[in-house]
């Protein structure tokens, strides 16, 4: 009797282990495969993209537009046969705009779903930098809106072998700005830099670009928590700068433009890439934005006619269009999906290794890119290689209201 009861007790855990062993040998997501990282399950007819980003928190506007961009691209690809015949499906994993939450929710997703074919790894650098190690450890393929603070540039592929971005390096837009300063004959640039990573990351490139062009510069920093930057702008005015390069974002742009107007400092202003992250006309008066420009992608300028933009706009309209951000937010996301589709077609496979090899081959041409006409990656660099096509994607835009992602410059 006792032996029978003992045998029954031992049979239960034994049966459980046996079932787990059978389960793991039957799928790629089991115990043995997870030791090497999740590998996407094949043959289910779906190319799944897990979007990790803010859908409800402080960066909800950006996150929603990136998500809608993925959906629009998925719709277009599905209308044209999907990715290697697989239907593209976007799944949302909301991180509420918090980097630590992004890791938690992704891990929870990975334990409750089969591994996705692609992860959209965050919408801002803190989340991306938190997610990339997790994604890399699990051998997943990913694209992100930006590079997580330099994590995907030259020499990083050993650590992040299957992770890519469509956002070009900071050296490109600051080079465009420096060329503009040279062309306009400015002698001294006053640089107002908000103490945030995106602005501080650009600084060495801007200083180098100005030095190379023989343009003097004076730098001031503005605390991220400041609500008045008049002292800093006053310092640049006192230094005799004949143009102001303003590298701040959101509310800081409003404070800076108000300070310049209050001081009666009538020098031209050129904003950095983040200048129009929030519509500047919602932060400062038209008078304060007089003679204010900023660098951004041509696709954001309503005066520019870019290829395939009509297709993007047609497909994003289903999701309410582009709202509160520049068009480049959606088109860079779109381009990531087109690059992935082109790589899959080239490789005739959708595994992370196959997609990576195709992207690294130097050119994954697609006729449907909207921001930059071609994206080139190498085995050591998963940021777009700096080419003429990348340079050609940027312009200096006059400030004006942003309507459905496109700037209607006051200067027009």
């Amino acid at each position, binding site marked *: 009797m006792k032996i029978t009861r003992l045998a029954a007790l031992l049979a239960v855990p034994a049966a459980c282990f046996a079932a787990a062993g059978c389960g793991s040998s039957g799928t790629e997501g089991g115990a043995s495969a997870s030791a090497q990282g999740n590998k996407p399950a094949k043959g289910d007819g779906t190319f799944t993209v897990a979007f990790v980003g803010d859908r409800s928190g402080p960066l909800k*506007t950006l996150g929603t537009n990136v998500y809608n961009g993925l959906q629009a691209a998925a719709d277009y690809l599905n209308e044209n046969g999907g990715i290697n015949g697989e239907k593209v499906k976007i799944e949302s994993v909301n991180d509420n705009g918090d980097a630590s939450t992004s890791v938690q929710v992704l891990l929870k997703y990975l334990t409750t779903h089969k591994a996705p074919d692609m992860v959209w790894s965050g919408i801002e650098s803190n989340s991306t930098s938190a997610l990339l190690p997790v994604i890399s450890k699990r051998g997943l393929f990913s694209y992100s809106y930006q590079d997580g603070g330099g994590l995907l540039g030259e020499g990083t592929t050993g650590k992040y072998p299957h992770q890519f971005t469509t956002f070009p390096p900071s050296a490109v837009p600051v080079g465009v700005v420096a060329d503009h300063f040279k062309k306009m004959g400015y002698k001294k640039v006053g640089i107002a830099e908000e103490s945030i990573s995106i602005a501080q990351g650009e600084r060495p490139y801007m200083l180098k670009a100005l030095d190379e062009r023989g343009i003097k510069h004076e730098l001031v*920093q503005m605390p991220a928590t400041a609500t008045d930057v008049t*002292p800093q702008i006053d310092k640049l005015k006192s230094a005799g700068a004949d143009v102001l390069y303003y590298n701040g974002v959101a509310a800081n742009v409003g404070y800076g433009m108000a300070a310049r107007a209050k001081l009666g400092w009538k020098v031209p202003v050129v904003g950095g890439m983040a200048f129009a992250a929030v519509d500047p006309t919602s932060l400062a008066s038209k008078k304060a934005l007089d003679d204010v420009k900023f660098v951004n992608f041509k696709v954001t300028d309503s005066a520019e006619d870019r290829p395939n933009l009509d297709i993007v706009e047609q497909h994003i309209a289903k999701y309410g269009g582009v709202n509160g951000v520049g068009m480049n937010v959606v088109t860079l996301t779109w381009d990531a999906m087109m690059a992935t589709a082109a790589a899959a077609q080239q490789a005739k496979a959708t595994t992370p290794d196959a997609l990576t090899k195709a992207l690294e081959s130097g050119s994954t041409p697609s006729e449907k890119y909207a921001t930059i006409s071609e994206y080139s990656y190498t085995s050591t660099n998963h940021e777009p290689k700096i080419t003429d096509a990348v340079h050609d994607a940027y312009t200096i835009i006059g400030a004006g209201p942003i309507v459905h992602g496109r700037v209607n410059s006051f200067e027009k």
Partner: protein
Amino acid sequence: MAQTIWSGLTMGAIFALIASGFTVSLIPTGVFNFAQGALVVGGTFLTYQWLAKAGMPVIPAVAVNVVIGVVAGALCELITVRPLRLGRAVGGGPSELVTTVGMATALVGVYGLAWGYDPLRVPFHGPTEVVTILGVRMEPVEILLVLGAVAIAFALHAWFKYTRLGHACRAVAEDRDAATLRGVNVNLLSIGAFAAAGGLAGLAAFAVGPVTLAIPTLAHTLALGGFVALAVGGEQSFVGGLIGGFGTGIVSALATRYIGADATNISVLAVLLISLTVRPAGLGGVAAVRSV
């Protein structure tokens, strides 16, 4: 330097207004209402709503803001303070500080849900042409902010010193039990104080909003600045809070201008540490005497 000092005075005026709000609710209740900064930020969003979206004239908009502020302040007291007081004679413990911090966080979330997290430009329906006084360029709204902070601080000082109700508040602050025995309705004073602080927040928002923009996450920054002003000035002194606010703003602006952005927060901390070391009760505070 004069321009930088004026920037400091403007920011300091905002801190002083927050400190005045803290003091109004602190004197009769002993509770530091950390949600005061959030109430001011709520006022800036409402100002944006009335003036930019609804097209309301200024006077009715101010009146509505004050009424809503009064109601919001009263609700703060009922939700964060009153429940903790039930069965307890003495107030002003750490529990109320925690609950008011929670209220501030909840309000920030509400603003984000209602208006989003992108900053909003709050219009100022007054003169907008920059004026130059003694070589310093000033916006009219900044002049209103500075003069308003001074006027409110002195008005509140006079009210608490010379009016019957002000005396009652000070009596409660000195000895709550004795005040109760003398017939002072401490519960009514408590809710009234919070309501008044809320009304002050709604009023101040008309001048604060055009300077700071309406941003939900600004609540904690303003509360911390107001706290430093209060600590420097003394927790029951309106004039002390005014001087503390101006001093903090000026030191911070000068440090930012002449040292760098990294010095901004450090300079504020230095002001706080030095003032607490030299005069722990604050500039306008009175050291408490305790029998042992």
